[in-house]
């Protein structure tokens, strides 16, 4: 069912890959820009956090966008993943990647468990119950009974410093990359990285690799049969059940997978910042991730990437910008990010409810374009003549008539994902 990638999209993906590889070497030297009196010093950590946030938003895309379950507990699972991967590393001395996977599995099981009672409640009701879970997380980890493991109000610190493995030429790469024209000499240079710098760059690559794996796995799960079942269940649960989809199993599984993704995102958060505190994961984080969802688009993995970048960089930018003519300083130094994000959330929901990447909108546009193209080519006769292959997309041409129309409809709603 894979659609062949066009030359243009192949070139775009190649370019994006190249940028992602070179980017940490530019950011690690903290390039500084001065914009209208504001100093903006970029760093590798914010880029790594953008990747982490993208995984968090992906978890929402899966559960809210694809499955239509209005669950806001993602903030809870991100927190649980961060804490669990820390605890696995500190208490059980597990290697960190194993700890992250373990945390993901635990969160997945927990999420599936949450999905069971959630099957019985719907819509806003579900949102109301699950938001309690997200808001209570800081209180939960401070419970004295588990304080020994969670560190109570102090949070946890991952011991040691990140070290790049020797078998990867991470520290020496600037020698090669420094020769790139224009940006090379300015931002990369040709000195090898210090071991601390190599550590942050290595963290970035590790997080990026992990996130890539998660995106690939989720794309694999939600493509094809399961993806169509998800769409059908979201749009009409009863109809989907009548067509043979085991909706209960599907929804509970989606809860599990989505929570596992959120848990892994939390584990990656712990890898990037190496410190977790109760207040980081509460209601505010849940709303920030929702902002990423509505900005990027509820139904597309690419939207999650855009959402993640916004979730990481919006607070970073509002933190750096301290002088804007005409705006009092107190508005720029306080919780500006939250104010801006809250307003943007309202405005975006009003103006572009589908988000920046909206597969339905682009599918409609593609279809309109195709219709125009056939109108231009076809000779003036009405409808398909006898013996002619009826106009259907090639991916469905081996199906019978009734099945074809239903699948085409679903595929159109799906927006031919990939």
């Amino acid at each position, binding site marked *: 069912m894979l659609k062949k990638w066009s030359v243009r999209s192949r070139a775009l993906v190649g370019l994006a890959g190249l940028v992602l590889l070179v980017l940490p070497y530019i950011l690690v030297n903290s390039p500084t820009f001065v914009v209208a009196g504001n100093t903006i010093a970029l760093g590798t950590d914010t880029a790594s956090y953008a990747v982490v946030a993208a995984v968090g938003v992906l978890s929402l895309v899966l559960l*809210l966008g694809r499955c239509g379950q*209005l669950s*806001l507990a993602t903030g809870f699972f991100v927190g649980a993943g961060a804490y669990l991967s820390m605890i696995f590393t500190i208490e059980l001395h597990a290697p960190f990647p194993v700890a992250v996977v373990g945390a993901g599995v635990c969160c997945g099981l927990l999420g599936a468990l949450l999905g069971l*009672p959630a099957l*019985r*409640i719907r*819509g*806003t*009701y579900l*949102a*109301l*119950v699950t*938001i*309690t*879970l997200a*808001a*209570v997380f800081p*209180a*939960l980890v*401070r*419970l*004295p*009974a588990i304080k020994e493991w969670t560190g109570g109000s102090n949070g946890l610190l991952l011991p040691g410093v990140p070290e790049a493995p020797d078998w990867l030429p991470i520290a020496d790469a600037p020698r090669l990359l420094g020769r790139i024209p224009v940006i090379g000499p300015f931002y990369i240079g040709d000195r090898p990285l210090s071991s601390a710098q190599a550590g942050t760059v290595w963290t970035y690559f590790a997080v990026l690799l992990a996130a890539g794996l998660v995106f690939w796995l989720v794309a694999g799960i939600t493509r094809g049969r399961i993806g169509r079942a998800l769409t059908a269940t979201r749009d009409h649960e*009863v109809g989907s059940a009548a067509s043979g989809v085991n909706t209960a199993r599907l929804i509970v599984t989606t809860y599990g997978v989505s929570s596992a993704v959120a848990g892994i995102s939390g584990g990656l958060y712990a890898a990037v910042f190496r410190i977790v505190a109760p207040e980081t994961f509460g*209601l*505010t984080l849940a*709303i920030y991730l*929702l*902002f990423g969802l*509505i900005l990027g688009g*509820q139904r597309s993995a690419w939207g999650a990437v855009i959402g993640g970048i916004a979730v990481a960089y919006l607070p970073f930018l509002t933190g750096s910008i301290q002088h804007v003519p005409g705006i009092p300083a*107190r*508005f720029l130094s*306080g*919780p*500006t*990010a*939250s*104010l801006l*994000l*809250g*307003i*943007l*959330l*309202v405005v975006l*929901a*009003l103006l572009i*409810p589908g988000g920046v990447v909206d597969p339905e909108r682009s599918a409609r546009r593609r279809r309109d374009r195709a219709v125009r193209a056939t109108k231009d080519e076809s000779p003036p006769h009405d409808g398909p003549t006898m013996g002619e292959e009826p106009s259907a997309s090639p991916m469905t041409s081996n199906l019978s008539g009734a099945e074809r129309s239903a699948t085409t409809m679903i595929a159109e709603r799906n927006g031919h994902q990939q």
Partner: protein
Amino acid sequence: MELLLARLFDGVANGTLYASVALSLVLIYKATALINFAQGEMAMVGAFLTYVLAVELNLNILVALVIAMVASALFGVVVHRTIISRFDEHEHLPVVLVTLGLLLALNAFVAILFGYDTRRLPSLLPQGSAVQIGSANLRWYTLGVLVVSVGVLALLTILLRRTNIGLAFRAVATNTESARLVGIPVSRVITLSWAIAAAIGTLAATLYVSDPLRQLDPLVMERVLIFAAAAAVLGGLDSLWGSLAGGLLLGLSESLVTGYVSWIPPELGMVVALICLALVLLWRPSGLFGSVQVARV
């Protein structure tokens, strides 16, 4: 025994206030099947308005409260008219997102204007204790809060049962389409419910922070919103008196559990809300007094 009484009194005072905020959630849910997650923060803004009027402009606290309630009601009208009514009423996600955005924005706005310092509001209710049983005080505050909350609930019930507006509201709550067909101005009725809900929220928030033992700061209502949400779900989201039952249940279990269970200290009372919610929902998914939803295919 005295300790138990003191804890019961505390629980009742908190519980009735949770119930009042829950009531404003329930009112909007009944009319539109939507939840206003920004209710707590709208109430917090109202409480700050009362503070500004009473402390910085030296108005009488009661006058200040009334002005703040009217202003909140107007704000509720504006929010519903300009934002909420633009969305399809059958789509839950956008409204949930928008009200959560409002929650974040209002909270940050007040924090920017007033900072996170705590402020003291002059007491609305008489100080001191009404009844003293050993070391347990039944404070005038507790009694006053109980009377006001139950009074508001009773007034609202009368409004819904005995007036034409109430009849229209109940018609909208039962079936929006049919209500529209018989000529009820549905949108206006819903706007009115937003106004009333916002005013009740401000009343509850002001009462909550006017307790001499509490102070006003921008974060005070997040906790209350969670308890109110839990109370509304416990009582049944479409039951007015259920919200009182849910609020009392939560307030009492919060003060008793954090008092007697050593592994849940008082500042982590939210955990109790979560446990109560989980237990009741497993047993009755539509709450204690909520009507059971039947989906017809």
